[in-house]
């Protein structure tokens, strides 16, 4: 059976691209888009797939990761879908890919100006945590009324002595729009700041796309005396490659139930196994992000 190039019909892809252009023009702003039916159900990466379909050209090289891994079932199937419907090359090497579609992680290796990272987003609205009404969140975005988001962080510090949000850690993009970075661990938040690459976010079920263009300031919300901190792995290292500066997954290592830690980014782990000095290459300190001075 033959499909249109990259599955979606040309008009649909064009409408997605129009929405993406608007998203890039207004960093962090959620733009509604058509969100077509796909052969998999909403909630399984359909937002990301539609964004990637709209971008694909015959010369693109695609990489798909899920929780950092190239070899998970969902990632493999999505990658095979692009290979079959658009006849593009696929890869597991981060450096080689022109478009990387991802869920839950930003690769450990620095992305370049010629690469696009497409993130699958289940919940695009960062304010949903504090406000259930769509009309009200629209108003809050329009007026930049984000005080209540800080109340959630305040309560977190009252209860736990620090900000404990592990993922979907809210960010302020370009000093204007509050944005959910999707369910990436907050470990990855600093990579969004002043990056070389383009980040595109697609939420299929919620029918929203948004974007962070290259060289855009992305500030993770925090207090002046409780600055943003990435998770600490308390000096643990990856069992396979020995890295201490990557995001680690805790895994059950063998039948005895022994627990160990491994890099969640499998492609990067392989690079490190070959060369322990392989650099991550992100330009700035990834444990914190410079914040604006209080005015």
């Amino acid at each position: 059976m033959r499909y249109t190039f990259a599955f979606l019909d040309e008009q649909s892809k064009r409408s997605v691209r129009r929405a993406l252009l608007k998203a890039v023009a207004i960093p962090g702003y959620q733009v509604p888009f058509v969100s077509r039916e796909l052969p998999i159900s909403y909630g399984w990466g359909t937002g990301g797939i539609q964004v990637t379909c709209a971008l694909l050209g015959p010369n693109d090289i695609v990489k798909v990761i899920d929780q950092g891994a190239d070899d998970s079932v969902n990632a493999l199937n999505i990658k095979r879908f692009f290979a079959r419907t658009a006849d593009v090359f696929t890869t597991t090497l981060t450096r080689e890919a022109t478009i990387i579609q991802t869920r839950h992680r930003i690769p450990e290796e620095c992305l370049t100006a010629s690469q696009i990272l497409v993130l699958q987003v289940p919940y695009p609205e960062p304010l949903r945590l504090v406000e259930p009404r769509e009309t009200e969140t629209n108003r809050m975005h329009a007026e930049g009324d984000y005080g209540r988001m800080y109340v959630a962080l305040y309560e977190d510090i009252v209860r736990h002595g620090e900000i404990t949000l592990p993922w979907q850690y809210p960010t302020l993009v370009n000093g204007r729009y509050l944005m959910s970075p999707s369910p990436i661990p907050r470990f990855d938040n600093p990579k969004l700041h002043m990056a070389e690459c383009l980040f595109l976010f697609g939420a299929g079920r919620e029918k929203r796309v948004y974007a962070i263009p290259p060289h855009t300031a992305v500030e993770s919300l925090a207090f002046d005396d409780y600055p943003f901190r990435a998770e600490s792995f308390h000096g643990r290292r990856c069992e396979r490659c020995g890295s201490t500066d990557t995001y680690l997954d805790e895994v059950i290592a063998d039948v005895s139930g022994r627990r160990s830690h491994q890099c969640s980014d499998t492609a990067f782990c392989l690079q490190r196994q070959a060369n322990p000095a392989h650099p991550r290459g992100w330009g700035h300190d990834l444990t914190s992000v410079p914040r604006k001075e209080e005015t």
Partner: protein
Amino acid sequence: MTPVLSVRDLTVTYPSGVVGCVDVSFDIFPGEILGVVGESGSGKTSVLNAIALTLPPTRGSARFASPRLGTQALFALNAQQQRWLRQREIALVHQNPHRALNFDLSAGANVAEALLAADWRHYGRIRARVAELFERVELDLTRMDDLPGRFSGGMQQRVQLARALANSPALLLLDEPTGGLDVSIQARLLDLIRELSRGLGTAMLLVSHDLEVVRLLARRTVVMQQGRVVEAGVTDQILEDPQEPYTQLLVHSMLT
């Protein structure tokens, strides 16, 4: 002396055609508490909500002397400017704390919310300011991180008051602040409001159906009936020598 708030010909008509208030005019001066009395449905709350910028008026004007923005025509401002004023300079205390407080957040967070909305971003300073406000409204500091649902009605009103005072507003609007409270707790809350008025010099608009409350707090009073102001003047004079038949009825039905 220039008034903090100067209301002229304020008229509110609801979409259903029901008239809220008609041609209401008054001034509030710095440090003053102005009482607005009348029975249910007399238009008191329409006036209050219009000034609190939660209900757009049909006609009329309100000039507000903003400490930070200068004199502003309240109803001509855009939504963002109105919110800015509502979060910093014009505060409202509801009769029902459930309408103002978030009962899923701690009492302290409810007060902190007002500070965070006004761009406070230093946790330590926010905590210190919340503690200061708790002391000012005579709330137990050790209960700062408890949920307001565990507080008594009088304490909930104090939390609301602390929240309203958080950004040192120029104008405080009180909507039946003691409604539904025990008489003894009412008295203590009224004392507190009077002390705050003296200590902070905040201008207040006090809406109440209870003449006794108005007599205790307000030096000047406006009497409303069926959406219109029927009598206005010095509170003691109105209570001792009411001119209008309606005011006479109100005064005579007071419990003594």
